[in-house]
């Protein structure tokens, strides 16, 4: 095959080629501009309660069925007698809350209208991606879009895929499953309930509420993967949703064990973050038999980092009888493993 011949064919068949290019394209060959055009009609602006004491009265949602089901974040905005939903093209509808799942920070609304032509996401068609993947974020952050204006689009990459709360106290939010962290500033007022998509338009996740990471004192930009929400959305949409009881709070968990129960005398807890140094070990105690010594610094209890005497108390308090207790202590410059069993 020579180049000459190729050129000939190309010219002679040009009209056909144009036709072909207009065929629905495969997902992986779509530019972000095309993606944005495709996604925008599926996004809605939600208006409800708020507007006082710094609470915003607007939010974002996305259509998940041709009948007008909308997934969004469970928030105070929905706590209103009437919720207004404005579509991408400016059409305005009333909506009601069909159901909510607070553990997932999820709510599903239904438009109060029949036979409306709608674009929507197929929540069965979602992707799962890793760090470095380019994303687009769609939301009505700060209520910038009004009337028939499309919602705002940000671009960025997936910064991390991680668990929102591996330990209590890091984030103050009921949800504790996997999340995407993004490097764009996506989580703003009113942005919760928006979506993340890949550059080529595959639905990834729902943007969460504004949230502070208590351990680094920074705001986190995160979104909950659709895979985590899918079942709940389907259940609420189909009307066979069963609300679950809330998990008990950490504060309700009784403190069952103290360091002394193992024969450990810790240094006096005087500072906010007194390091968990062992002051002395009671002779013939469990700790003594396991090989703990005074001046050991307790660093991990069952793989949980112990940053102070206070966190040690909480970690030991949570143990139950029969649990294995694995400690890692720092002795001089060495890390030493200690194993014990929690007795009754």
């Amino acid at each position: 095959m020579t180049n000459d011949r190729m050129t000939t064919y190309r010219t002679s068949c040009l009209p056909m080629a144009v036709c072909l290019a207009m065929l629905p394209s495969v997902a992986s060959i779509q530019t972000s501009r095309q993606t944005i055009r495709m996604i925008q009609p599926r996004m809605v602006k939600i208006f409800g309660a708020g507007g006082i004491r710094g609470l915003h009265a607007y939010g974002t949602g996305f259509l998940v069925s041709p009948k007008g089901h909308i997934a969004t974040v469970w928030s105070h905005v929905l706590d209103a007698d009437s919720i207004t939903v404005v579509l991408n093209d400016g059409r305005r509808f009333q909506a009601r809350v069909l159901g909510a799942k607070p553990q997932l920070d999820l709510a599903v609304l239904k438009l109060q209208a029949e036979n409306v032509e709608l674009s929507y996401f197929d929540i069965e068609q979602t992707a799962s991606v890793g760090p470095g993947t380019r994303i687009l974020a769609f939301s009505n952050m700060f209520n910038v879009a009004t009337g028939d204006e499309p919602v705002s689009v940000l671009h960025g990459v997936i910064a991390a895929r991680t668990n929102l709360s591996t330990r209590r106290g890091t984030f103050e939010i009921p949800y504790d499953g996997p999340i995407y962290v993004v490097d764009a500033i996506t989580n703003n007022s009113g942005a919760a309930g928006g979506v993340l998509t890949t550059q080529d338009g595959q639905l990834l996740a729902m943007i969460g509420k504004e949230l502070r990471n208590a351990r680094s004192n920074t705001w986190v930009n995160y979104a909950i993967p659709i895979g985590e929400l899918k079942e709940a959305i389907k259940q609420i949409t189909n009307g066979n949703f069963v609300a679950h009881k809330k998990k008990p709070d950490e504060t309700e968990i009784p403190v069952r064990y103290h360091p002394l129960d193992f024969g450990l005398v810790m240094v006096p807890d005087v500072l906010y973050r007194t390091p968990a140094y062992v002051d002395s070990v009671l002779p013939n105690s469990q700790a003594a038999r396991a090989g703990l010594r005074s001046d050991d610094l307790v660093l991990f209890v069952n793989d949980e980092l112990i940053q102070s005497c206070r966190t040690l108390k909480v970690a030991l308090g949570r143990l139950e009888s029969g649990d294995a207790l694995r400690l890692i202590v720092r002795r001089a410059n060495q890390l030493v493993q200690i194993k014990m069993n929690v007795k009754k």
Partner: protein
Amino acid sequence: MHQLILRLTLTCWLLSLMFSTALNAQISDAELEELEEQAFKQAVALVSQSIVRIQTVGGLDHVSRVLTGTGPTTGLAVSKDGYIISSAFNFISKPASVLVTLPDGRRFAANVVATDRSRMLTLLKIDAENLIPAQAAPKKSFRVGQWALALGRTYESLHPSVSVGIVSALNRNWGKAVQTDAKVSPVNYGGPLVDIQGRVMGVLVPLSQRGTNESAGVEWYDSGIGFAIPLEDILATLERLKAGQDLNPGLMGVTFKGHDLYGAEPKIDRVRYGSPAQKAGLKTGDIIVDIDGRNVVRQVQVRHAVGNKLAGDTISVTVTRRNKTVKTKMTLVAQLQAYESAFLGILPIREKGNRLGKPGVGVRYLYPDSPAAKAGLKTRDRIVRFNNSEVTDAGMLADLVHRLRPKQPATLVFLRADAATTVQVKLANIPNSVPGKLNSAIIPRINNDESSRLKIGRFTQDVPAYQHSFWAYVPDNYNADYQYTLMVWIHPNDDTMEAALYKQWNPICEQRGIIILAPKAAQIGGWTLDEDKFIKDMIEQFLQNYSIDTTRIFVHGFSSGGRFAYHLAFKHRKLIRGVAVAAQPLRGRLPENHPDYQLQFHLVCGDNDNLYPLFQRTATVLRQMKFPTSLTTIKKHFHTYPPVEQVREIGRWADTLDRI
């Protein structure tokens, strides 16, 4: 049949060919986006084995008002045998123990080896072999606009966290850092900034042009303004850090004439005693023209040339001195000898604008046993010459004396009954005491009513621009022909003490010519650090409205108010000349005594006050830094405002702020 098949095949082939060629033109954008994404991921994969997770245990919960995080942070392996570099920010809480987790999950106890205080880095060491050190991208390859990826390992995940941006600028912060718009925050401080080839350009740190402590610049997190210290620069000083040597910014020990950093030429005003500049023979009046082969014309260029240099680095400096070019070398130091100015031992007569046209500076008061007293001067003598310079006013004499050091000799000429006498004096140290008796200066009687437009007496005023208010007292006998002392009263938390303070100070103000300005904190419960702007504006407004001597402006605070008083004085050196604090020790790092902006201290505390030992320590530290500091102990006194006698003493001290 055969032909049909052939035709079909051909058509299919043609179709597919058309499909791909037609799309070729149209999808290049999409393809590019995808290729770039792949490149990001590959770059991350290349460097990820060098990125470690750091956890700390114990330590402070607040550092200079920034709540320190307790979460994990990031570090970068820089040698096979266990050296890890990270941002100093990650260790500001001074943790009791540091732990490093390698990408393969192995966990080690780490020791802090050394800190680079110029570029805010900390070197750690763990007992591990076969780390995979990061590969440095050459600094020469950096271009503004190129891709830059900020990586961290704070999240619990196999992969490092990624933020993608570009290089926004080079040589930021006096040549120290690369700037990027990738999101940089406590999530990735200590992690690498990587180019698209997976080479490490630098280590992410918070930096600020203004602040110099470890947490400066943190307020810019995730803003699109992030900084990284080039890894090449770090590797160049790695051996020094490995040896346990802390690195500090290098100082020359010169100040320049004029404070226009961007406009004025680098003409040396003062050469600090014992500094590298003095040892290299630099002199007042020299103009720096070249540093290390870099031509300099303006002061800011000197900072650019020296800003990235460390203590211990040697630089070559070329100056012009009376049309001659002089070339020298000097080794920079971390700390200059504390500046200490000389003392003649007089208080000048206060003559606003010297309206009577008398020559020189009159002597109002002589310190007993001072150089001036020993040389035979008496009150009302007039000093007209000092070391070959004609003296026209007190400010000029003060400047001439303050340029010299204690124990240096000087020659002065004074007039007594129009007869001139020349004497030799040996200058002394500024005394750390307050005269037991000091007649107040003569405040002329009011002979006109031009000042009647001004508010006089005790009054309160709202300042809507700041949502603040203040109360003030201007002596009833206010006369614009006299220059007053200004006392800025900083009330303690929860109590403005307005009535009590006014009652105690009213007679002292009348006697010694003191105006009180008493701002109120927006929240009476306590001062927030940024309220200094409001106070600064109020001081400047008072300077405009009233006749105030700028060498006699001081802040006065009691208990928790003292803390903010220290802060104000150190933040506004150009404005404030004195600090009188009762019952509040000074915490934190002290700024240097600055030759251009002298600051004097007076401390009062009861010996039954729990804070008394700390308070004594404050005086010792201030004196070590050569700040003139008087300390008064009130016998059997607890943590309350001082009684009349000690308050009068503060008045006397304030009346000597213009001592020479």
